């Protein structure tokens, strides 16, 4: 398993031999990261091959697992980081960050 040094995330450029990317965003929809919102991230992650994580404080969730996203507890205004590791990591987390910034299409 990989061990992310998320305390110094800005220095993140590679992990092992794989390129890594990171974007920090805020959950801006009123209801927070609930089932349908998390589902949108899971669906969006599908076409990518990179490992993708959503990190909150010192805990991280696998973006491909809705259960791990839902057990992270990310209400309105939570700051989270998207971290991708792999060839298409940067593209993937850009897509994911956009979904979060668009408030999952909600209020």
């Amino acid at each position: 398993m990989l061990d992310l040094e998320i305390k110094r995330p800005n220095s993140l450029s590679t992990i092992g031999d794989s390129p890594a990317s990171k974007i920090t965003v805020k959950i801006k929809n009123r209801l927070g990261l609930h089932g349908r919102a998390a589902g949108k991230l899971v669906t969006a992650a599908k076409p990518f091959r990179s490992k993708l994580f959503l990190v909150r404080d010192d805990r991280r969730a696998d973006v491909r697992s809705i259960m791990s996203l839902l057990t992270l507890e990310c209400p309105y205004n939570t700051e989270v980081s998207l971290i991708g590791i792999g060839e298409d990591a940067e593209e993937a987390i850009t897509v994911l960050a956009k979904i979060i910034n668009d408030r999952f299409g909600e209020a």
Partner: protein
Amino acid sequence: MILPPPFVPKKNVFCGVGVGRGLAIGPVHVITSNSRIRHRTYEISPDQVKPELALLEQAIQKTCAKFKAAQKALPPELVGQEGDILSTHLMLLNDPHLIESVTQKIEQDKLNAESALAFYFNQHIKTISAFKNEYLKSRVFDVETVRNSVIATLQEDEHEQGLPSFYQKGCIVAARELSPSEVATLPVNLVAGLVTERGSRTSHSSLVAKTIGIPCVVGVSSLLSRLGDRSQLILDAPEGHVIIDPDHDTLSFYQKRKNSMESDRLEINRSAHLPATTLDDHQVRIMGNIELVEELPDIMACGGEGIGLFRTEYIYTMKDELPTENELFESYRRVVATVSPSPVVIRTLDLGADKITAIKDLTPNNHDAGNLNQALGLRAIRFCLKNQDLFRTQLRAILRASVFGELRIMLPMVSCLEEIRETKRLIFETTQELKKEGHSVKEKISLGVMIEVPAAVIIVKELGREADFLSIGTNDLIQYSLALDRTNPEVMELYQPHHPAIIRMIKTIIDAGKELNIPVSVCGDMAAETISAPLLVGLGAEILSMPSGSIPKIKRLLRMSSFEDLQRLSFEVLESTNNEESENLIRQLFRGRFDELT
């Protein structure tokens, strides 16, 4: 086959909304949020690991299939939108971590699949239950639902192998509310019926309940507090009744009724697609009543020959805004195109301002929304003609949909000629408008008038000359003619469809139609009742329109009748002096021939 007497149990009867068909009789099984489902934990031997994993895989796949089937029962535009919790539940079920973690538990701890699954879900349920954010915490419900659904499916399979299960075979599940996912995964080999305190005919769980093939009654308020652990229940889905701890007579009545319904249903449904042609070759057209596009497949499957009443109120009551022309057009178009080449009769808005969510608080006519009787107030065609912007929007949508099939327009609650003339003028104007804007509108669209007000019966010939067809709304006609409020229990027993006044009025309407050479249909409850439909045909009604559930049996009843007999019956009934005498005459004709005169 013996005709059961009309039987109304007096005690312990509670009313709700019936969903689906049939009767269920059995012990109650109450489900509360803590008692939802119990799992069994036991260790397995190493050589049982493989079959246990296969069982797990199978249960997950089967639950997925049930969720997907349930999703199909919901309005298609809902999928992916707010309220579509089934998509979230499917995703939780297909979570890659689920299969990985549960498999590991089975392999390493040698636990049965059921308890390994429960362990996985309970772990996460515990985490979510400790959340500080109230909303996210409340969504622990989703995880619980999925857990319960998979475990229920596992137990359903295991029951087939003779293992004991959470549900006693033949039980009736009672709950405050079940989510669509839980309804979809009720083990129907064990559970005979479902009754809930919450829910309405169109709530998502109800739409799903219709598809799982067991009788359900929803919206029975304060049901659970009346139930004991060992209560016996009778569910009567067609009537929407729940009877708690029936006495001996009630029980034996329903037992008989259930048996005859079951044997009849097989035969009746097999022949649903056949036309309703009497023994002496008189043909009656049997059409369906719908409120939602989603009800169409049922009407088709039950042998409905078009839609005789498409109610258009639902969308106005559901949202805080008035529906747009395009929204209305889209729903009308779908119905008309799906049913084409058979006809669809669209009834224009049959509501007053008090029922329209978007305007109920701001309308200047709101002063009669208080204690005054809404049935006598500004509603239906009266309301539409006073709110012409709203009416024009609906008419434009209807007219635009006209080119997609055989569409007809029907006006509710007409009481004077001017209402038809004014509507015709509006139809003419909006047609010109639409054409100018480049829309196509069918040249000749039939316009019908509902006869449901006593005054309209008296001037029916004058009204009929302005119309292309007449349709009898029996429910309102009875209410207005007998001067009784259908919602007032004190006068319920006076609601008599076979009162001589009603029968004679129906006769007057049908005769007027014959004289003017325009068709007359009946679209109220009477058309759907086995006791009334043959009489209506005998009186000369050419079209009966009813909910899907009644179509097969009414068709069958008419197929085994002779028109000559029905005509003779109608003459006798026209001479009767009260409701009971009329009903006895009808029952006599069918005695020993049609068991299900229920």
